[in-house]
């Protein structure tokens, strides 16, 4: 009996590794191509047959990006906006999700429908009235405009996801704390939040990413070159008459690194032993 379990496990492991490798080619193959193009000269990017590494392997595209103060500013702006949005959205969403998950009150269903539906309006039609509103509020070309805008885009997602995560946690948890005389805030921040860390982290990462990668509203709400963000910087390389292909690829690679680092850094919260089994029984 023991032998067959071992063989089964080994077979399962082999199957798993094969599956993982196929998945890796699917997921990372195109990105690898992008990376290889960022080191080529523009000529070689479209040649046939395509090659991964070419003679003119160079860092020129990257150097061009790093030495341009405007481009560096794009990255700084993106960082500032994305971090602020993430922190603020999480704060607001956790509170809202708590109420939606734990309480029952009049208008709850309507509010829920509204929160879900606000993101269902095609942004291209929303653009002009929204822009007019921002100008009217005096927020044109400010960090505040971008931060508030992205908060509004990410709140529905964050609230829905956090409500979902909170819903997987039994209500007896907070009741237990309340018996000791604690209020709702304590129940939320002392009990629910620490257990929901994986959920919070995944919501936070995605929020950061939405703020980091958004283009249309960033372009419309900023005017001066010192307020623009990375996606705008990438599109500026796509001119009417020529594309700077290797720079586009290089800037995309550079643009993806912050989110990747964030993900790699925080991913230990995905594999924590913090939550599994400790609470539910």
């Amino acid at each position, binding site marked *: 009996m023991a032998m067959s379990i071992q063989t089964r496990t080994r077979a399962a492991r082999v199957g798993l590794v094969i599956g993982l490798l196929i998945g890796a080619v699917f997921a990372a193959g195109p990105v690898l191509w992008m990376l290889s193009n960022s080191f080529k000269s523009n*000529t070689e990017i479209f040649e046939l047959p395509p090659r991964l590494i070419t003679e003119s392997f160079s860092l020129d595209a990257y150097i061009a990006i790093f030495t341009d103060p405007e481009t560096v500013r794009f990255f700084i702006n993106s960082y500032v906006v994305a971090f602020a949005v993430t922190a603020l959205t999480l704060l607001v969403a956790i509170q809202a999700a708590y109420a939606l998950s734990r309480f029952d009150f009049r208008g709850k269903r309507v509010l829920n429908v509204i929160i879900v539906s606000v993101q269902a309006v095609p942004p291209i039609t929303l*653009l002009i009235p929204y822009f007019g509103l921002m*100008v009217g509020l005096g927020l*044109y*070309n400010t960090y505040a405009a971008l931060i*508030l805008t992205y908060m509004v885009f990410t709140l529905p997602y964050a609230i829905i996801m956090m409500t979902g995560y909170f819903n997987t946690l039994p209500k007896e948890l907070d009741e237990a704390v309340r018996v000791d005389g604690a209020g709702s805030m304590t129940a939320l921040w002392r009990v629910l939040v620490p257990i929901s860390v994986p959920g919070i982290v995944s919501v936070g990462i995605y929020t950061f990413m939405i703020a980091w990668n958004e283009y*249309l509203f960033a372009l419309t709400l900023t005017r001066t070159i010192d307020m623009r963000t990375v996606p705008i910087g990438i599109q500026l*390389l796509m001119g009417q*008459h020529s594309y700077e292909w290797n720079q586009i690829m290089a800037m995309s690679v550079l643009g993806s690194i912050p989110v990747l680092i964030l993900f790699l850094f925080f991913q230990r919260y995905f594999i924590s032993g913090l939550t599994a089994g400790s609470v539910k029984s």
Partner: protein
Amino acid sequence: MTRAGQGHSKALKIAGAAIAAGSLMLVTGCSGGSSDGATGDAGGDVTIEFAQWWEPELPDGEFRALIDKFEAENPGITVELVSGPYASTKEQLFAGAASGTMPDVVGLDGAWVNDFASQGVIANLTDLMADAGYDDSQLASQIQVDGGTYMIPVVNFVYPMFTNDDLLAEAGVTTPPTNRTEFADAAQKVTALGGDVSGWVLPLSLEAPNGVQNDVMSWVWASGGSMLNDGQPDLTNADVTSAVDYIQGLWDDGVIAAGSFTMKEQDKVEEFTNGRVGMMIDSLAHINLIRETNPDLNFSISAIPAEDGYDGERGIPYASWGIGVAENSEHKDAAFKLVSFLMSEDVNSELSTMANAFPGNTQSVPDFVNDDELFKTAFDIYQASYPANEFTGLPVAEELMRLFGEQLQAALDGQQSVDEALQKAQDAWVAEF
């Protein structure tokens, strides 16, 4: 809760609070540049904004240097350059107009003029010219709507035919074709070389449908034909029908490169530059690009082939970088000064040289014309032809191109005949007029 859990939650709380507090400070404290529109300071100093997509496409710093020259000649006027990606320019201008934040001077494409003008977004330049006492005789062209000028083409990018001489020679064609029969013949010979080589390339992407203008209608105009009759659509006439039939013929012969229906201009250039296409109709702006990308490529410029036996003046398609003034600009006079500066003989020559384009000022001559064989040929063709772009100044010009493109794609795909396609396109166009 475990000790570790408590420690974690505390750390998270502190981190969260710090970030939140910091970001709140940023939100309230930070803004960039000047956040309102053109300002007028005391003492008569004026700041105007110029929105364009030109600066990123020109050599670093040269456009700004040109503008600095303007500021030096006009103390009291400061010009702020607002550069944005070309693909988004139209929406941005629109959003700006709708919210009253439109910059004073705007770079325009001829396809937008009619719509912007009829919506009162851009100012009537004829009036401004009259106010400033401007002599417009040196302007090569003015784009007009209802008798008033709304856009002045600053520089023109003409679209002659490019031929890959090596490929043609290999296929046994010694000179670039001059009429349609020769062209079809050359295309077939090149395609017969096999591999991934094609005779011609036709970008028909519906996202940026200027392939209809540059690669399809150009055949009509090259033979002196027209797609309009008295300013109204006339797509079923003999000129257009013969051109589209011809293209259908080329398609059926299999001489057109694959991927047409979603191909954009950049893709076309890449295919040509990599030696996979024998002939293409393309913008002069790409001459240097092709040279830099593939120095070994031997190519030449010639006029777009006309119908066999046609010996009249040929039309050559062009696209411009146009300029206009915003209707709700508070500094129209300063704005127009910038316009006239850019259109002045020397500045226009300089700008044309920078952009590898032909000047919008009849007296200007860009440097490259004298220095460069290919450009000289192109300039000669330009001067021997008449600039032809019937789409400029039409209402919803880009949409017209798209409507035509959809029908053409259906025809090429075999879903309908050329006549049906042209009739449907005609009906669609009439509905927009």
